[in-house]
């Protein structure tokens, strides 16, 4: 199950602490994510999962050298540059560009995130966007306004938009929250297929079957600290993880 340890980590988080006033949201978090890994991130509400994602994707700034991506310190880079380097994310509450159609949402990514090659015409980029959408089963919705999408379609569109930035690391922040069980399977299959395309995926999720099925490794946060990390079964069996989730 676990990928070989030989390659250098894709993402290194080391000694990452994030405070908001007197509140410590992340407390000395260190973890390495390997290339190609499917990594599950769990923890009760308010444990710091989304804060960690925000620190990685650049919505929050952190101390120097706490976030290293592909061997490079990215802590000083704004979010859009991190996206261009290969970090893409979806949002816990979907954030589509509401005034645009589905395919236009993807065109934003293709216009800005992917190194602009003047030889690549607009028509070609449109084709790329369409092929990503078909891969997600959204091709029929390409020209629909983003406001008309259902919840599961919105989730898929967010993943499609993230994919259009050609990421090396995709962070999915509760992409399955609020979906029915068949829809959860749909999105999970999508994430699995992305992972097969050599994309490293960090998945934040509350739905345990999904986490168990998807992840090669799982990390559990509680009150900003890592309380367990390892194979999914081990983490689930961990006393502290069960306490954190169920209360004592």
């Amino acid at each position, binding site marked *: 199950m676990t990928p070989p340890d030989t390659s250098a980590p894709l993402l290194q988080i080391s000694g990452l602490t994030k405070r908001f006033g007197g509140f410590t949201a992340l407390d000395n978090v260190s973890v390495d994510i390997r290339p190609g890994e499917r990594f599950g991130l769990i923890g009760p509400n308010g444990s710091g999962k989304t804060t960690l994602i925000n620190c990685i*994707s*650049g*919505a929050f700034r952190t101390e120097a050298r706490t976030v290293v991506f592909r061997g490079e310190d990215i802590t000083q880079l*704004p*979010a*859009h*540059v991190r*996206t*261009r380097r290969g970090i*893409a*994310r979806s*949002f816990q509450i979907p*954030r*589509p*560009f*509401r*005034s*645009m159609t589905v395919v*236009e949402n993807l*065109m*934003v*990514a293709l*216009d*800005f*995130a*992917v190194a602009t090659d003047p030889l690549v015409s607009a028509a070609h980029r449109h084709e790329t966007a369409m092929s990503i959408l078909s891969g997600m089963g959204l091709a029929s919705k390409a020209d629909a306004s983003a406001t008309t999408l259902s919840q599961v379609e919105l989730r898929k569109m967010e993943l499609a*938009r*993230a994919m259009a*930035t050609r990421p090396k690391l995709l962070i999915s922040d509760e992409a399955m929250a609020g979906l029915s069980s068949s829809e959860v399977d749909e999105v999970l299959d999508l994430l699995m297929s992305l992972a097969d395309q050599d994309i490293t995926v960090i998945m934040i999720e509350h739905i345990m079957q999904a986490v168990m099925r998807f992840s090669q490794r799982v990390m559990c946060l509680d009150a900003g600290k890592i309380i367990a990390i390892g194979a999914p079964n081990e983490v689930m069996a961990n006393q502290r993880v069960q306490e954190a989730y169920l209360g004592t």
Partner: protein
Amino acid sequence: MKRNGVFFWVGAAVFLIAIALMTKLITNEYPFFAGYVILQFIVLAVAWSILGGHAGYVNFGTSAFFGMGVYTAVFLFKVAGAPLLVQIAAAAAVGALMGFALGLLTLRMQGIFFSIATIALTIVIETSITNWRYVGGAAGIQLQRPPVTWPFSGYVQMLFFVQAVLVVLAVVVSRYIQNSWIGRGLQALRDDELAAECTGVPTLRLKVLACVVSGALMCAAGAPAAMYLQYADPSSAFNLNYSVSTLAMSLIGGTAHWAGPIVGAILLGTTQQLLTVTISSEVNVLVLGVMLVLFVVAAPEGLIGLLRRVRDKRREGKQ
């Protein structure tokens, strides 16, 4: 797209030729006097909506930019008797710099905070100019128009034509932005700034760019006003009415398309001119307010938005 482009350029050319013919054929100065104001507001509204429409940042500082344009012209004319084109070009440069500074200082603030900062800018600049004796201070300054050059028969006709060229320039810029990657990026950040940033859009850089372009055009639109009135004083050059009218015109026309502000400026500008002549210039402001309220309630996306909705409904009906 291509055919649209041809139509657009032909339209622009026809517009300029028509304006040029008007300056030859109409001898009465009044139509130019009134028309000039409308053209000026088209430039202001189109320029405003580059930042206010595409990016969604509501700028109340139109009068700051406009007034700076007026006073750039005044200063250059007094110091060196600079010709009109130099005045306009310099005003555009000053406006771009102002936009750059305003953008860097304030565009990290979102929504209402940005708007408040732009009002503050107007007050700061107006106060500075009021206390600057060289350009007339609070009392204002009289300007003597230089003799008009060929092919124009009168100075007002020339100003009218120059402002028409500025209209074309502003519309070309606005249309280019709307149809290019810049427009897509601005639209994305208006919808959701964080999502845009995480999709690779350099949001701050694009906002500053929009602010620079918008500022340059607004300042340029203000520059000929000094010669138009042959007089400038701070309280009229920096009058908040410029900000309010411009905003109202853009919103009433609709900011979703470059043509929206033009429609709004023509509609409101004409109404204002008619009211000023027939009733009084005070009624202007009242009508402006009433129209703004009506549109906010009945057609929040302006005339362009209203048209689109009707068109979409019809299309649905056909299907």
